């Protein structure tokens, strides 16, 4: 059963190839169904492999399936091989599972788009790349997947590339990711130069013997890889692409920017946990960066008007939590939160998409309200997602967030405090969103203008999306089955997802499952007493946050003091980047283009031509056409020769 592992990435790849060839002919909606079936098949294969892995005893659960020898160079052997172990199978399970649901949703969401088939081409390619990222058995293969998901992210964000904002967002995502990728590459180079090999088994078994790698080297490696993770998982300072990435279609936001791609960084750090455990400086950096990012993003989310942007900043914040966990040595907690977050964040995004679809491409929350009467299913599922993310027991988010906070306390009380405050803010801004969208007065009939200021907006002339004509003041409607079915499934998972790792034995399935991979490197767990205290305190704060949000925003959508400009403009980070990075860059490139290239190089090249022409023109004056001038030349030459002869003769 383990031999089915290769099917997991192969099916999406096959789907991609098929859709490239005949996708246009299959059209809407057949191409979408093909892609979804392929993903479903991949999920089944993952399940089979998972069961096969479970059949083995706990210590025996690492299995390498060699596909072929890729680079058979002496001293630098890279194989195309898949590593099936608890960590990779866990990732593959929720990637394929959530992925299938989102593919299904997208069939309904993208109906009517003129590039329907191409969307699924990209989605399947993305799935393949993500699976290679987590299933690869060496850094190079993972990097292949890493780059692949970056590329697909670019392609999908700028799917509606006729819109300047979408194209620009895609470019921003790609470029920012690239900065991170440089970090990944540096880390890989360091690993290879130090360990002489790039396969996980080789490197990580050696690394766990701490005499093998010095603390400094390990720290540099981990920091370099963390830089890559910052790019991919949108942490400070490379998070700037994720809010803009909301220009892409909502299924993309759900799949890539909530559930899967952005978790790649967390996966990477968990994978190199042996290295991280011998580099405490790096681990501390990871934890603090994660915590600060979480708080930072949460503050911004409190003042955003666009429904998707709130969720984007929320994603950044929750990712911060995951890094906080990883940095504190609680790998299981981080992965647990990754899984639960995938459920409820994907759910929230798909619900947002449903709302946008139902309101004919309206994204500004200030123009929504009282939608609960018209979109009941979406309303119910959204509520479930809301409660889950707010950390209310017994929903999934509560358990995972609590584990993280406990681990943070173990590392430093400051980290715990930041996490604590952020949890409250999370509850607050999500409640604000619920109040603005689902309760209060119905504001969607008031105006059909595009939203204010900083909101990203799918304009009514967008070539894709809902497929309706814009109706001024037309009533919102619920989504079709193909769209609300995934919502229901994800909601169910958000409710019960917590059971995979309840904090007492023997219900801590995930912890025991992941133990062979990350167990030896995890920090010791905190006393149950403190855990209980933390849990109660956090829950209380979250309830307060929910109350505040609902009360304040349920009454009226206008509270300017609670939305200061600095938060609305995301702490002015983008303009600052523009000033310190773009401007000098532009100056340099202008200088290179207009001074160096045009004046110096072109000048030199053209100058050669000018010199030749000029000298030719001067030499031409010798050709007067008069015989007597030529005779004069001959006479002069003769005189010179005579002079030479006379000189020699004397």
């Amino acid at each position, binding site marked *: 059963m383990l031999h089915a592992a290769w099917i997991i990435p192969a099916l999406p790849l096959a789907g991609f190839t098929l859709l490239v060839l005949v996708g246009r002919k299959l059209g809407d909606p057949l191409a979408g169904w093909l892609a979804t079936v392929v993903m479903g098949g991949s999920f089944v294969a993952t399940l089979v492999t998972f069961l096969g892995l479970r059949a083995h005893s706990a210590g025996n659960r690492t299995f390498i399936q060699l596909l072929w020898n890729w680079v058979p160079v002496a001293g630098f052997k890279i194989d195309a091989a898949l590593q099936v172990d608890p960590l990779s199978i866990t990732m593959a399970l929720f990637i394929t599972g959530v992925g299938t649901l989102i593919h299904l949703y997208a069939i309904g969401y993208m109906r009517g788009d003129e590039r329907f088939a191409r969307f699924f081409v990209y989605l399947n390619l993305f799935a393949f790349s993500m699976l290679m990222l987590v299933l690869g058995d060496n850094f190079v293969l993972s990097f292949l997947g890493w780059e692949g998901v970056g590329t697909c992210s670019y392609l999908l964000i700028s799917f509606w590339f006729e819109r300047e904002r979408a194209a620009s967002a895609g470019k921003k995502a790609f470029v920012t990711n690239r900065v991170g990728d440089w970090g990944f590459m540096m880390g890989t180079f360091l690993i290879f130069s130090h360990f002489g090999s790039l396969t996980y088994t080789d490197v990580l078994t050696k690394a766990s013997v701490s005499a093998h790698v010095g603390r400094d080297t390990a720290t540099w490696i981990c920091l370099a890889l963390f830089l890559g993770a910052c790019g991919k998982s949108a942490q400070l300072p490379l998070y700037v692409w994720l809010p803009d990435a909301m220009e892409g279609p909502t299924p993309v936001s759900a799949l890539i920017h909530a559930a899967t791609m952005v978790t790649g960084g967390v996966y990477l750090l968990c994978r190199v946990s042996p290295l991280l455990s011998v580099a405490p400086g790096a681990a501390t950096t990871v934890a603090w960066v994660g915590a600060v990012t979480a708080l930072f993003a949460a503050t911004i989310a409190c003042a955003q008007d666009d429904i998707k942007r709130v969720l984007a900043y929320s994603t950044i914040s929750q990712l911060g939590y995951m890094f906080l966990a990883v940095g504190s040595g609680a790998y299981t907690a981080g992965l647990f939160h990754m899984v639960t977050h995938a459920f409820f964040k994907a759910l929230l995004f798909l619900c947002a998409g449903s709302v946008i679809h139902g309101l004919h491409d309206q994204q500004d929350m200030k123009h929504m309200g009282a939608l609960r009467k018209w979109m009941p299913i979406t309303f119910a599922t959204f509520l479930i997602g809301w409660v889950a993310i707010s950390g209310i027991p017994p929903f999934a988010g509560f358990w995972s967030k609590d584990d993280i906070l406990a681990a943070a306390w173990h590392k430093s009380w400051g980290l715990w405090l930041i996490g604590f405050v952020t949890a409250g803010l999370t509850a607050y801004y999500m409640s604000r969103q619920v109040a603005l969208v689902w309760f209060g007065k119905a504001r969607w009939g008031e105006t059909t203008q595009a939203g204010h200021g900083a909101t990203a907006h799918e304009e009514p002339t967008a070539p894709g999306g809902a497929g309706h004509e814009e109706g001024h003041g037309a009533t919102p409607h619920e989504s079709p089955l193909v769209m609300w079915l995934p919502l229901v499934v994800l909601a169910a998972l958000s409710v019960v997802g917590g059971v995979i790792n309840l904090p007492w034995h023997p219900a801590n399935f995930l912890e025991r499952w992941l133990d062979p991979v990350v167990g030896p490197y995890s920090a010791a767990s905190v006393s149950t007493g403190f855990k209980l205290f933390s849990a109660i305190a956090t829950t209380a704060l979250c309830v307060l946050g929910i109350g505040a949000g609902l009360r304040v925003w349920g009454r009226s959508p206008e509270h300017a003091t609670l939305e200061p400009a600095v938060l609305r403009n995301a702490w002015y980070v983008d303009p600052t980047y523009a000033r310190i990075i773009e401007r000098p860059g532009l100056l340099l490139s202008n200088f290179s283009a207009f001074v160096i290239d045009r004046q110096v190089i072109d000048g030199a090249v053209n100058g050669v031509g000018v010199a030749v022409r000029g000298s030719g023109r001067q030499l031409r004056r010798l050709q*007067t056409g*008069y015989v*007597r*001038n030529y005779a*004069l030349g001959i*006479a*002069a030459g*003769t*005189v010179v020769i*005579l*002079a030479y*002869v*006379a000189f020699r*003769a*004397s």
Partner: protein
Amino acid sequence: MGGLPLATTQTADWLVFVVASVIVLAGGLGVVLSRNPVHAALFLVQTLFGVAVLFVAQQAHFLAAVQVIVYAGAIVVLFLFVIMLLGVDSEEHLRHEPLRGQRPTAVLIGLIGLAEIIGLARTHWVTGVHAVGGAADGPGANVEKLGRSLFSTYLLAFEVTSALLVIAVVGAVVLTRRPLLDGSDLSATVDDGTAGDGTAGDGSAGDGTGGDGTAVSGRTS
């Protein structure tokens, strides 16, 4: 030479040399400086005579004779014929020189060249190589010695020069022929269009009509 005292012979020699040289150089200047080409031709004759005298003074009697007969007698006559043919009254404007800097440069180059040649003339140029063509002095007439040299050592050159003469004659005939009506002549390239008498003067070199409708068989008067 007979019984004149050496001093007298020397004086005579010098006198002859000086007079002949004056004649030569005056004639040369006359050629260069006269406005009328006929005058120039006559001055040329003067120079040629002077040179012939100098030849005689150097015991090259035969060459002196040939000089007068061929150069002064044939070549200059040829010059005069052409001058008559082309317009004896074509006078040049000597004062004005259209090409900038030509005159000063020419004079300068001439002077420098003269200085160099004279400098060379004064150097030691005897190489000690044996005489090839036989001794020039000694008993016997100059003609005989020259003939002997010509017909033995330089026989090949002699035959080649005779061929050259034939070619020159043929060339002269071909060049100055009246143009045929099919325009296969060089003179048809004269761009004022007329091709000489005998044609209708339409100027184009490519057609074969006589312009007045008569068929011309290709031989003109």
